[in-house]
Structures are given as structure tokens and as C-alpha cells.
């Protein structure tokens, strides 16, 4: 509390703060360091350029070890210090904070995590899962398959390999609905956590011969999967991953071995994204980066840039709309005026409205060609009617 009273001109400028309560020590460390590093870098960049409305921004990074309890602790502590925008990068923690954020009127960003039905802004007024939900992402994968098979999926067999807990189970409902609608066969292959033993799963996949496998796993489990696929001689190009697959995984699978592998994503992968280049030039070349350089060579870094571009852009809009200081309400308003925002070509353009807090849920499918990711589709958001049916059905139950 005393720490807030810094001397000089800064004392006047109460910075716009974002609470970055992440799992930096447990299961999600395959992604959280990159994302948080991106957040810190971006904040520095924004400050270099004069901040927002002339005031600096600050990201406060804390570890919650993926424990709801500690997540709440982080949230309460920071919100007392005046933070009203939070992100958790963890479904369990996001769920734990959600009731409080709703109650206290704090903005809970939850890109790529948390409950998918929170895109329904009419129910979850303080929750912003900007970016794709897992439901939308799965639907887009199906749309891609449909495009691949010239609009007819009736003879196609799709396997769904997933972590057998809520994160992996989530898309099942949508996939089942779409399998009925489009007439493809759906086979489910649950993988028990932590995914280090997948031998029987892939033996089964080999025997069932699906045309494609959609995979909802994280980190090292992709590598295990790829090895099992090699053993079973299942070609890599059948593999369509959820967005949580990165360059580290590719390296561990082997650049060559990974050729043909696909993933759905809401950000542009690769090193030559303009925003990243700018950060490299402004920060890393001057030794001002917030972490090791190699962490920026990772799609999750781009993911982080995308998430926080949105966070800061909304703040900018808020200042435009209602001036300083930014309040939770003005920030909310700022968020809801985002329109076709793509952070300078970094990600799928998003448009957030009072009803749709998801921003449209666009993703695209990319393929690894041995060196880089090659887009296979445009930014799409398919079957949005089906997805919204599920969303509405689920969000209606909230608050009862």
C-alpha cells in the first residue's frame, strides 16, 4: 500500500494495472512463461510509446500453481491494490475467480480458458473469453475437414483423442452434434492424465483407421502421441491439434517427423509477426526484454501478445470514450467497442459486443511444413449457430 506512493510525477499517474495470476510452477508451465513474458514485453512497449492516455501500464505477474485457493488469494490481494482486469490462463482458477469477479465488478479476461459459455455477455457481464472457445475451435476444425473433403463428410471417420478431464472433454458435445449434422463417424479416445502412456490409444487408432484425428491435449502429450503414431505407422498429416501445441513440441517431435501436422489457432505463428519484430527491436536488442529470447520464438508468445494487445487496446478505447481514469465500467465499454481488431495482423480479427464477449471465435488451421506454419484456411468461425445453441443452453443454467 505504501509502495504505491512513489515520488515525483509518477505519483500522480496511477498506472493501468493488469493482474496476471498464472500457473507458473505446475502443469501449465509449458505455456504460461511465454504468455506472461509477452504480457510484460508488451506493457514495456506500450510504456515506451507513452503509455495509455499518457499514463503507464503495468502487468503484475503472480504464480497460483493452478490451485483455486491461491488464485483467489492473488485476485483478492491485487483487486485490493486497485487492479480490475484479471487473467488466469487456467480453467480451474478462472472458474474459482468468476463468481467473485461477477460480484465485485472486475473484468475477468479468459482467452482460451475457463467456461466456454461465458462468451454469452448477457449472462456473464464481467467475463471476456476473447478469442475462440474450445467449442468454437472444434467446430472450426470440422469446417476445415469439410472443406478438405469437398463439402461431404458422410464417409469420413474422425477420431477425437483427448485428455480425460474437463479441458479435453469439453468439445465432445459439439463434435457429437456436428457428427450427426454432417454425417461423419466420430470415435472417442480418452487419454488419462498426464498422457505419458498412450500405447493402447494409438494401437486402437491404427486399427480403427480414422481419416483424421482431432487432438485435445497439451505439451509433452503431443510428443508422446507422435511417437506412438510413428510406431503404429499413422501418418502425421492426420493430426489436427488444439491450439496448445508449440515449437518446443515440434522440436521434440522432430522437425522432419512433424511435417504435415496441423493445429487450429487464433494467432499467426512464426517469428515475423510485426508486433514481435517491433518488440525485438525496441527491447531485446537493447537488453530490455523480460526474459530469454528463445521464449519469444514460440507461438505461445504470440498468443500472449494477442491476448494483451486486446487488453491494452480496450484500455485505449476506454480512455477515448470516457477519459481518465479508467474505471471497470469504462474499461468494459472499451472492450465492447473493439471491432475487427487484429493487432496489426497478429491474430484473427475480433469484434466484441455486449452479447458476444468472445469476439467472434475465429480460428484457422495451419500445417507444419518442416520449417514454418502454412495456413490451410482463412480465419473462420463456422457453425456459429450450433455453437451458440450450446452456449445458450449452458449459460442459461448459470445463476440458477
Amino acid at each position, binding site marked *: 500500500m505504501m509502495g504505491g506512493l512513489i515520488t515525483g510525477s509518477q505519483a500522480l499517474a496511477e498506472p493501468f494495472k493488469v493482474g496476471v495470476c498464472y500457473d*507458473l510452477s505446475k502443469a501449465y*508451465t509449458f505455456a504460461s512463461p511465454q504468455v506472461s513474458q509477452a504480457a510484460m514485453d508488451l506493457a514495456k512497449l506500450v510504456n515506451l510509446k507513452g503509455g495509455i492516455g499518457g499514463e503507464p501500464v503495468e502487468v503484475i505477474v503472480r504464480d497460483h500453481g493452478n490451485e483455486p485457493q491461491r488464485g483467489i488469494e492473488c485476485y483478492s490481494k491485487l483487486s485490493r491494490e486497485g487492479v480490475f482486469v484479471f487473467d488466469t490462463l487456467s480453467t480451474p482458477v478462472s472458474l*474459482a475467480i468468476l463468481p467473485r469477479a461477477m460480484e465485485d465488478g472486475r473484468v475477468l479476461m479468459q482467452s482460451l480458458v475457463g467456461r466456454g459459455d461465458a462468451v454469452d455477455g448477457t449472462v456473464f457481464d464481467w467475463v471476456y473469453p476473447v478469442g475462440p472457445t474450445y467449442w468454437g475451435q472444434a467446430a472450426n476444425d470440422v469446417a476445415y475437414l469439410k472443406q478438405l473433403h469437398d463439402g461431404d463428410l458422410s464417409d469420413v471417420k474422425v477420431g477425437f483423442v483427448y485428455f480425460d478431464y474437463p479441458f479435453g472433454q469439453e468439445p465432445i458435445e459439439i463434435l457429437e452434434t456436428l457428427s450427426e449434422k454432417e454425417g461423419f463417424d466420430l470415435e472417442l479416445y480418452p487419454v488419462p492424465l498426464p498422457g505419458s502412456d498412450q500405447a493402447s490409444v494409438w494401437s486402437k487408432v491404427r486399427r480403427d483407421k480414422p481419416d483424421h484425428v482431432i487432438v485435445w491435449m497439451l505439451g509433452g502429450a503431443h510428443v508422446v502421441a507422435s511417437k506412438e503414431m510413428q510406431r503404429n505407422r499413422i501418418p502425421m498429416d492426420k493430426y489436427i491439434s488444439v491450439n496448445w501445441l508449440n515449437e518446443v513440441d515440434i522440436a521434440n517431435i522432430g522437425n522432419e517427423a512433424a511435417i504435415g501436422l496441423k493445429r487450429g489457432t487464433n494467432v499467426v505463428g512464426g517469428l515475423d509477426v510485426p508486433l514481435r519484430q517491433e518488440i525485438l527491436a525496441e527491447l531485446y536488442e537493447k537488453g530490455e526484454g523480460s526474459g530469454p529470447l528463445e521464449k519469444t520464438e514460440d507461438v505461445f508468445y504470440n498468443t500472449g501478445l494477442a491476448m494483451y494487445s486486446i487488453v491494452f487496446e480496450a484500455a485505449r478505447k476506454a480512455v477515448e470514450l470516457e477519459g481518465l481514469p479508467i474505471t471497470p465500467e469504462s474499461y468494459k465499454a472499451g472492450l465492447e467497442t473493439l471491432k475487427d481488431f487484429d493487432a496489426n495482423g497478429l491474430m484473427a480479427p475480433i469484434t466484441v459486443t455486449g452479447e458476444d464477449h468472445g469476439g467472434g471465435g475465429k480460428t484457422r488451421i495451419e500445417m507444419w511444413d518442416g520449417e514454418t506454419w502454412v495456413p490451410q484456411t482463412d480465419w473462420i468461425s463456422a457453425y456459429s449457430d450450433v455453437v451458440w445453441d450450446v452456449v445458450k443452453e449452458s449459460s442459461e443454467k448459470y445463476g440458477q
Partner: protein
Amino acid sequence: MFYRLSGVHHADYISDSRMFKVPADRNLAVFFLIIGVAAPFIIPSLYLNSYMLPWLIWTAAALGLNLVTGWAGQLHLGYAAVMAVGAYSAIHAAKFGVPWEFALIIGGLASSVIGSLFAFAALRVKGLYLALTTLAMQFVMDWVLTHSPAISGGSHASLQSPTLALLGQDITSDAGYYYVAFGWCVLVTIFMLNLKRTGLGRALVAVREKDFAAAILGVNSFYYKILAFATSSFIAGVSGALLVATFFFLAAPEQFSVNVSIQVLAMVIVGGLGSIIGSYFGVALILLVPGLVNGLVAAGSEAIGMQINVETLAHIPNAVYGALIVVILLIEPLGLGKLYGNIREYLMVWPFDQLRK
């Protein structure tokens, strides 16, 4: 000087079996009770709600586990699962329209029933074998939770808790939540204090130490083991339900996962098996230290202006936390409760400690 034994005589058996035989202990207990009641007026709501409240509820829960592990001597690694049973049953009951008073009891009873199943394992196996069996049961519960949307609340596996209401009063304020937690913790504590001086407590310890010797005294170890599990599970169930109703506001499987089971056991052991005051300390340590160390390390690295990699920064508190558990056990294997006891004993003779044998 504050603790005095001389001059304290118990002239009759009632006074000799008081909860706190040393007046200073009694005064201390009263003092903390008063602080507890006054807390909402003197403690900022942040601390009240994100530290005091979970601390009290977890203490109640830990005392329940202490009953089965500390008193009855059964290693239990599935305690969080039992808490989950209580939480989910109570919430479903409350959602169904059952008044919260009864919903909590339903939660407790449901936990009792499931918890007693754990006891059947305890009748056959001991020690680490039992620990692993209870762990397996925890896995079964986890599995059931993550695979039955009807119980766990849809595809997100999150179940919202209806607003807590007790005695016809909606409870929504921070102070309200706190008092509920405080009340429950005091109740459980009193129960445990009474346990120390009644036949039930003695019978449980007897079963723990030598079941054959207990048997020849007429103690049915079968019955008492089940009773221990049932009672502790009841406490677990209500604590789990209260945790959700006053703290999480929604129930999710991660709140009751294996890690949590291990954590509660750690609270009990670090606090001291069979020690009531120890459980208070143990919970405080296990629950609050990671966050504290986290903050300290963050503040420290900011203060010295060093740019430490966020990742390294996040892992250091874990290392410290692990080391702390190790160090405490090395200093006093009987846990923080014993450590406190040593200090108390020291004070009891201070400043006349030279006179000891």
C-alpha cells in the same frame, strides 16, 4: 511467570478434567475467542476473507482428518474426496430447495456414508498400504466427478452454489461468511477438545496404538474405526460444503483433487498428529506460506531490482515451501503443535528453569 502451575490444584475430578487445566491456557483461549468474534471489525476484509476464512474452514477440516489420522491412527489420502461428497451433496440439496441448515447436514451425512466405505479398507490394511488404498478411492471419486456432468455441473464441471442462508437469514456479507466459518471451526474445536477427555477419544487412541490390547479391554476396534471415519467424514463433508458456500461459491473437481488430499494431510502432520492447536498452525503454514513466500520473493526481487526470470521466480517459493516442511520436521518431528508445547513448557517454568532436575 505467565504460565503458572504451582498454586493450581485440582481439588475435585471435575476440575482435574477441565479442557484447559492451566489458567493461562484458559485465558489465552478466551482471548482468541474474543479476537475471533471481533475480527470483522478489526481486520481488513481482504485478510478476513482471503486468509482468515479459508484458514478457519481448513482448520475445521484438518481437525476432522486429525481425528482419523492423529487419534485413530489411520493414514488417509482420500480426505479431499470425502469433502467433495459433502460439498456436492449439500449444494445439490440446497439447489433442490432444502434449507441450508439441512443441506449442510445432508452433506455431512452423505460424506459419512461414503467416508465409512474408506473405513472398510482400514479394517484390512494398515500404514502405507492403507494410504494407497484411500488414495485409490480418491481416484475413484475424481473419476466419478469428472465423468458425471449431472453431479459436477455440466461440461465445464463447475457447479454454482446457491446463496447461503442460515436461520432464515441470507448470508452475503464478508463478515457473515466469516462468522459462519468461525462458528463451525469453534464447534469442531470444542468437539475435539472434549474428545481428549472422554472415553471415545481414549478408545480411538487405544485402537491406534495396539488394537489387540484395545480388544481385551472391550473396545471393538472394528466399530471404533468406522466411527472415527464416519465422524471425521461428517466434519469433512460440512467443511467442504462451507468452503464452497462461503469461499469458492462454486464447486469444481480441482478444489478436491488428490493434491488437496495430500495438502490436508500435510497440514495435519506438520501441525502435529493428535494436536489440536497444531492443526491451527499446520493449516496456517501449508495454506498461507506459498502465497506469502511468493509475495516475498516477488517483492524481494523487485527491491533488489534484479530481473529474475518469471519462471525461476515462480519455482523458488515451491522449493522454499518444500524445504520448510523438511526443516520443521527435522526440528520437531511431532510438528508445530509440539514446538508450541515446548515453548509453553519453557514458559511454565520460566524464570525458574534453573531449578529443573
